């Protein structure tokens, strides 16, 4: 019979670090069934029969959010052997609020008082024995960041699990409240155990709708319970839910008065406050923000990032060449060679080519998140983005998206609100990425040689469409939310442990490789296949391939945009593989094979295929339509469902189609 240790605690309490300490590298990440809430678990180090489950960071066990319900259901129905409640000792009042709720369940609770190093640094004192007595549970001081107290915590937790010692509920209610709650408790059928009865009674008193869904009470009984509740509500002039919340905080405030001695007097500034005086300062906030973002962008996307992408291209190019040599020696058929080198190696290279860049980017983002800066960024940017339905944290994905949409889409991980996140994922590809730039540069040079505003105007359109789409989609049902109050904690700054940052980074990268990667690989192989063969499966030149024929088939579709010819359609299709492939496709079509000297041929060819109006329309279409397969893979990976992926890509292509048509019409009139 395996032991299950459940880790429960507020966001930002150090739970993740603790989880990593407890489980080493043997971890799994999945989803709770049916929801996009991450489930993390692992084996307790040195204890092969003990599992540690990391539950989502929550402030309360209310029935309102997915994370809370998932945690609640797990605790009540899966009945883990012990709860390790991780509490931020430098922020006890709010953290203990959840604790009071946990102590009402039937499961042994061990309070891990984390961040004792911060408490010590602040000069505060906590009377741990007194706290344990008042809370009637075991309290273990720890500092997850350096492992202090870890051994003790494990020992205590396992003992509690074995002894199945349950906690006594805390006397949080005053007399009036207690009478009502106990009255409800007595009305509950005897089949529940006494402690669970108590928990149920409190939930019923609170009008917890989830509990009402889950247990059956006769109408008669329900009426009597409602009566008991109403009596209390009238006596205290408040609703029951608020009464219970107030009771909890009341108890905590009284308890802590005798257990903590804080060094800072009211009104004095903590170290974090002093830093924030600069970082969220009226005048300095934006400059600092832009400098930090620019630095992240410069290193992760431009310098190191680009170098790594180029480096990976070289590596895979070399692998491809070497493999070709081997196959030639082995007398392998041309078709097979093409499959292996262009299809498989090309496909794998397309995925792994991103990995170094994504890794660098996420090291930065994880560091910024873990040290606490990200919430400041959200604080600063919120107002700007809120106007068009996005979150303050949407800035980073968009910024990163100017380099490449793939890491941009993955950077939406930092957005907690699921609807904002989905919206950001959908709109990030509208921002011109570095792969689209060659297309714009080429078209601008060919058809607008003396108009320098044409290339940069794409950024303008990208931003306009993000703003417009945000405002539009926010009014539609999938995105219009029950307005959740935007209450965000601003955690104290702290230096994140390297291990935690690297672990976070690795989680993101791994997710990319497996979730997005499979799609990219499949798409690369598919496009390669369609581009290399005709329908009789002979190896042909691209202009005679299936993909080109599909282009011919689709050509009429683009008549409203002015580029209803098969070459443009064919080029657009190859853009699915990679946006810069559009340039090489036109080069192939111009018969120039893509080498530098024949640039003039390429320009001439484009001038023959497009007019200024249709060229600009084509640029708009390229900018906004479905992104490359890697980005689609990232979208699928982050959205978590094909339905949403198709919706996103469909919206993007639809917008592209319509706007390109409008632009063409307007272009015709202007000309």
């Amino acid at each position: 019979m395996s032991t299950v240790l459940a880790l429960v605690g507020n966001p930002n309490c150090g739970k993740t670090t603790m989880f990593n300490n407890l489980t080493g590298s043997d971890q799994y990440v999945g989803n709770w069934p049916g929801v996009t809430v991450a489930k993390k678990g692992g084996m307790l180090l040195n204890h092969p029969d003990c599992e540690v489950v990391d539950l989502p960071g929550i402030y309360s066990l209310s029935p309102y959010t997915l994370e809370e319900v998932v945690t609640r259901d797990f605790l009540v129905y899966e009945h883990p052997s012990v709860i390790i409640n991780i509490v931020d000792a430098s922020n006890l009042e709010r953290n203990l609020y959840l604790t009071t709720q946990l102590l009402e369940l039937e499961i042994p609770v061990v309070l891990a008082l984390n961040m004792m190093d911060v408490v010590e640094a602040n000069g505060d004192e906590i009377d741990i024995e007194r706290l344990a007595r008042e809370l009637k549970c075991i309290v273990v001081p720890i500092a997850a960041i350096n492992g202090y107290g870890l051994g003790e915590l494990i020992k205590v937790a396992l003992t509690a699990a074995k002894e199945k010692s349950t906690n006594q509920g805390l006397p949080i209610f005053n007399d009036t409240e207690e009478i009502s709650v106990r009255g409800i408790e007595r009305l509950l059928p005897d089949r529940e155990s006494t402690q669970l009865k108590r928990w149920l009674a409190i939930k019923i008193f609170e009008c917890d709708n989830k509990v009402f869904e889950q247990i059956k009470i006769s109408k008669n009984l329900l009426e009597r319970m409602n009566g008991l509740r109403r009596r209390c509500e009238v006596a205290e002039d408040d609703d029951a839910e608020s009464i219970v919340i107030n009771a909890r905080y009341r108890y905590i405030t009284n308890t802590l008065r005798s257990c903590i001695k804080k060094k800072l007097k009211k009104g004095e500034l903590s170290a974090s406050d002093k830093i924030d005086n600069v970082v969220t300062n009226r005048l300095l906030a934006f400059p600092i923000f832009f400098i930090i973002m620019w630095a992240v962008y410069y290193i992760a996307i431009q310098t190191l990032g680009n170098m790594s992408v180029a480096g990976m291209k070289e590596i895979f190019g070399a692998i491809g060449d070497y493999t070709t040599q081997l196959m030639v020696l082995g007398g392998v058929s041309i078709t097979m060679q093409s499959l292996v080198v262009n299809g498989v190696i090309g496909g794998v290279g397309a995925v792994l080519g991103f990995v170094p860049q994504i890794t660098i980017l996420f090291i930065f983002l994880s560091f910024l998140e873990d040290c606490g800066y990200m919430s400041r960024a959200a604080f600063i940017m919120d107002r700007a983005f809120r106007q068009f339905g996005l979150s303050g944290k949407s800035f980073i994905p968009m910024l990163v998206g100017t380099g490449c949409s793939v890491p941009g889409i993955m950077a939406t991980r930092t957005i907690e609100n699921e609807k904002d996140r989905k919206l950001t994922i959908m709109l990030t590809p509208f921002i011109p990425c570095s792969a689209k730039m060659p297309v714009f540069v080429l078209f601008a040079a060919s058809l607008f040689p003396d108009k320098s505003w044409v290339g940069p105007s794409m950024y303008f359109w990208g931003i306009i469409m993000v703003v417009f789409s945000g405002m539009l989609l926010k009014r539609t049902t999938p995105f219009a939310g029950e307005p959740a109050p935007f209450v965000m904690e601003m955690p104290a700054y702290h230096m994140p442990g390297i291990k935690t940052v690297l672990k976070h980074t690795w989680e993101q990268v791994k997710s990319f490789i497996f979730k997005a990667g499979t799609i990219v690989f499949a798409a690369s192989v598919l496009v390669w296949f369609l581009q290399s063969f005709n329908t009789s499966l002979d190896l042909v030149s691209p202009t005679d391939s299936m993909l080109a024929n599909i282009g011919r088939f689709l050509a009429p579709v683009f008549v409203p945009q002015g580029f209803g010819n098969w070459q443009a359609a064919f080029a657009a299709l190859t853009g699915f593989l990679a946006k810069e492939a559009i340039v090489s496709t036109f080069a192939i079509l111009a018969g120039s094979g893509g080498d530098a000297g024949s640039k003039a041929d390429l320009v001439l060819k484009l001038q023959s295929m497009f007019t200024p109006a249709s060229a600009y329309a084509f640029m708009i279409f390229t900018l906004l339509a479905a992104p490359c397969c890697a980005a689609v893979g990232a979208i699928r990976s982050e959205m978590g469902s094909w339905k949403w992926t198709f919706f996103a890509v469909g919206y993007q292509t639809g917008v592209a189609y319509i706007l390109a048509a409008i632009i063409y019409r307007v272009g015709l009139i202007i000309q």
Partner: protein
Amino acid sequence: MKNLREIAVGQTVTVVKIEVTGAMKRRIMDMGITKGTDIFVRKIAPLGDPIELKVRDYELFLRKEDAEKILVE
């Protein structure tokens, strides 16, 4: 009776009533903003919104449209 939105930076006020219901109210209260709690208005974001508050020993921020619904004195 004033609401939290109207309070100037640097002032400390006490919560009197929370004029929202349901999930929104629950969230605000879960975070520690309850009747009788002291709130210190730390600062306003550079763009004018949201506002940063100190509640029960920690910092949080709230949009002005939500702060409007918290009555204080």
